[in-house]
């Protein structure tokens, strides 16, 4: 539940990001409601089967929200990588694990890019940039016509 999957999702295009955002807001709303209730009602009024622990799927949503933001500000990606390395500091095979982590990430991104490419979502064709070409400026002024 970390960067590669999220990165791929984010890179797949605006529509996906939007969907994510939407579900994310919904989940936020839910969690807030839950929180509100918790604080108001205290421990007494839990329905049967209710547990105080955060629902696992919330964390996924949280992470995804982070990823969306990460995609927006790429500097964050670096921070994330650093954090991942921090976790590995205690390990003896730190470098190897780091390498595996890196390769895994790269493979994931490559797969995502390949998928996007095969679906034609990447602006790799000149026609994708056609709308941005400004009409060229005229250097000469010309006019005239048939002799009146």
């Amino acid at each position: 539940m970390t960067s590669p999957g999220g990165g791929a999702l984010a890179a797949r295009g605006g529509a996906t990001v939007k969907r994510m955002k939407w579900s994310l807001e919904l989940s936020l709303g839910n969690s807030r409601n839950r929180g509100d209730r918790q604080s108001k009602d205290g421990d007494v009024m839990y329905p049967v089967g209710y547990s105080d622990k955060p629902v696992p799927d919330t964390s996924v949503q949280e992470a995804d929200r982070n990823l969306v933001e990460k995609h927006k500000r790429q500097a964050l990606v670096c921070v994330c990588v650093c954090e991942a390395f921090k976790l590995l500091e205690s390990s003896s095979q730190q470098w190897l694990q780091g390498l595996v982590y890196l390769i895994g990430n790269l493979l994931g991104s490559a797969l995502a890019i390949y998928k996007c490419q095969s679906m034609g979502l990447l602006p790799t064709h000149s026609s994708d940039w056609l709308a941005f070409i400004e009409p060229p400026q005229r250097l000469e002024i010309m006019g005239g016509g048939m002799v009146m």
Partner: protein
Amino acid sequence: MAWLVVRLAISVSLLYAASAVFEDQVGKFDWRQQFIGKVRFALFDTHSQASKKLLVATDKNVFASLNSRTGDLFWRHVDKTGPEGHIDALLMYGQDAVVVVGNGRLLRSWETTVGGLKWETVLDTGSFQAAALVGVQDLVKYVAVLKKSAISLHDLSSGSQIWGENLPDSDSVQYQTIYSGENGLVFVLGIVPNSHIVIVEYKIEDGEIMNKKSVEAAWMSSLESSCAVVSSGILLCVDQITQSLYTLPLQSAEQTEMRQIHLQMLDLEVASGFRPVLTSTQPNPAQPPLSEFFLQLSPDHHILLQFKDGLIALLRDFSPSYLAAFATSGERTVAAVMSPKNDTACSINLFSADTGRKHLDTTIIYHMDPNGGKPNRLYVHAFLKKDDSVGYRVMVQTEDLTLTFLQQPGRVVWMREEALADVVTMEMVDLPFTGTQAELEGEFGKKAAIQDGLLPMVLKRLSSQFILLQAWLAHLWKLFYDARKPRSSVKHEVTIDILSRDEFNLQKMMLMVTASGKLFGIDSKSGTILWKQYLENIQPNSVFKLIVQRTTAHFPHPPQCTLLIKNKDTGLGSLYVFNPIFGKKSQISVPTLPRPVLQTLLLPVIDQDYAKVLLLIDDQYKVTAFPSTKNVLQQLQDTASSIFFYLVDSSQGKLSGFRLRKDLSTELIWEVVIPTEVQKIVAVKGKRANEHVHSQGRVMGDRSVLYKYLNPNLLAVITESTDTHQERSFVGIFLIDGVTGRIVHEAVQRKARGPVHFVHSENWVVYVYWNSKFRRNEFSVLELFEGAELYNSTVFSSLDRPHAPQVLQQSYIFPAPINTLEATLTEKGITSRHLLVGLPSGNILSLPKMFLDPRRPELVSEQSREENLIPYAPEMPIREEWFINYNQTVSRVRGIYTAPSGLESTCLVVAYGLDIYQTRVFPSKQFDVLKDDYDYILISSVLFGLFFATMISKRLAEVKLLNRAWR
């Protein structure tokens, strides 16, 4: 299977492009006005008292019936243009109108109430001289047609020829007029100029020559212009040299000389240099003319005279008088005379014809339009009132072709502006903001801000806000006031004062320049004429060029248009500068043009008053700038090296390009000669200056880009071969760069001939020609592409273009002849383009450019389907849904003008010819506008419903939660 796919593709594409108006949209944003042209003959239907018909025949070969109460057309017949449809004579008797058409080619009889053709006869060849109704014993039965060498008599009810005779000595004698009295004889009068008159009498029954005589008249050069028949067969002629009248009884055998009556005996004198005119009247063709007649001695002097017993008596002297005319109602004939009253008005009075006595209380005051021309024709409709006195109405035609119908005591019943039947050129100008909006704009004007301090600015702001509030309240009050009135009585009058730009700039001012030299400002939404200005002393064959120098966008400065008028005979031009919104002549000093002007060039350079600079090139290739302030001259000096112009001399087959020098002289930089022995240049077109191209290329099926060759300096030159033999004739097209003179492309269409109509826009040229081998009209389209890469994407310079463009061409069969061709134009050029084709039937076809695409494949492939290319089919379809003017046909459409509106989807179209039609077209449908039938109520009720439902359900949910919490 493939064929099925092709057909499917075509039908799908057709479905997509179909865009006809709905029934309820008719007349919503379009209007048509029908015209007839300059009236040559006008006859009031005096058959019955209640008749409202006015029959007119005009110089535009139109024969029509007008409603004399409203000025609307009852019916109209438009004949062929040119001499073939020329109306030579119009005669009317009872319900029938007899018309001679095409220099005596056809004789037609029309039923006047519905305008149906009763009969038509083809006449023998020979140039037409005169026609007259012939009566026998108080009944009109025949019509006689006199030709150069023959006379024929036709039955009025069937058109069949009773007899036709050759005229004696027709090679030496010019037979000019025809006269028939009551005595069963037809007189044909001929003349040998400056020698003698020949009079031939024919018997009506069988055409037998009863008598033939010649009378000395050495002074006479033309019968038609100087003679008239009065009383019972007395030929009356006037001669300005001897200052006398001559009389001759047509029937008497003994008198062989004309009797001379000196005008001095009547104390009259012909003004020097003026050719006197005789006007007689014959109320009933079966009876002899009246013995009273008008003699015009000078442009403003008419005299009513009477011929009695061989003597001429003066009944009344009208001096001054501009126009005089007879009219008959029942047994009574009256004369109406128009005399000047003061500088701006004329008075028309009625006089009894037999005594010259003035009828009491019959004055009509005719107010002359200060911006119009002088009256030059007067048509009188007399009728008997209930008290048996004679009442009358008049129709006045002026020099500027305005028809005004007046009744006592000077009320204008209707008015027609027939100058609009011949629009030469037009422009559309944005309307200004309203006064209040302008007030706000003015507040932030640069000059004002610098002069005033802070406090005055605040006060100004407050005052302008107050004015806005006031205007809004006035608007509300008006709405409230109008709402109380029944809908029919609310008049939607359009005046200049209330005109303002609408939200989407759909309403504009149409400036129309007509061949008669009259300018019109017309509201494009309603077709109301807001102002008109007649320019006097315009030669009939003048050339006009209308230029918009400053639009309404620069508020404190009024918009400014310039009309260049060039006299074809002298070659000299003059400038008329005016405000296009109000039609007022501008006070700006205009440069005098001592030398003939060859061409003009409107520069994007503006002076300090935001007027674009107009360059006028004279025959010594010197340039005059207008306006020519110091600022402008400085700017011109700076930019001179990048200003180029081209001239095309069709007579020498020469195209030449010039560059401007700093001292406003020019240097020739290139010349292309197209030998005139082989082909002649018919037309040249550059691109429109206000055209925008949104997309710089086309996306291919494999998602690469084919870049368009968008050369703003490209000219399309069309030539036609001088050899018109169908095997050897051809049409040529040259694409020439106007700056360098480089021939970018040339194409020849063999076995083709003109007239060629073409449109040059974006990166394409579409032209239409006649294929003389297959005898059909063909469209051909040329498209230019740079290729897969742009040479220089930031600037375009014709001087640095090493690569020639790729040219694609395709041709199609078009199943109809066409009159004119134009392309739609929109604000940003995002909307797809359509071609507007004016058909001779009067319909305007909106043809998607998609059908004229040289990349249409012969075999459908995956890629072409990806690109939405329609498979090639040689036949171009014409579908009725594409007629943008449904049944509002435009007769003889001569030009189509397109202008962008503030909405990207909408293009304003004006088609002009004999009629004027204005509409809007939506080539890609109205993608930026909600539909007319958009259901606001449903949408808003659903929204409100949802809103309240959420409110309620929220409340319910809260209650439920609370209840659950308590449980």
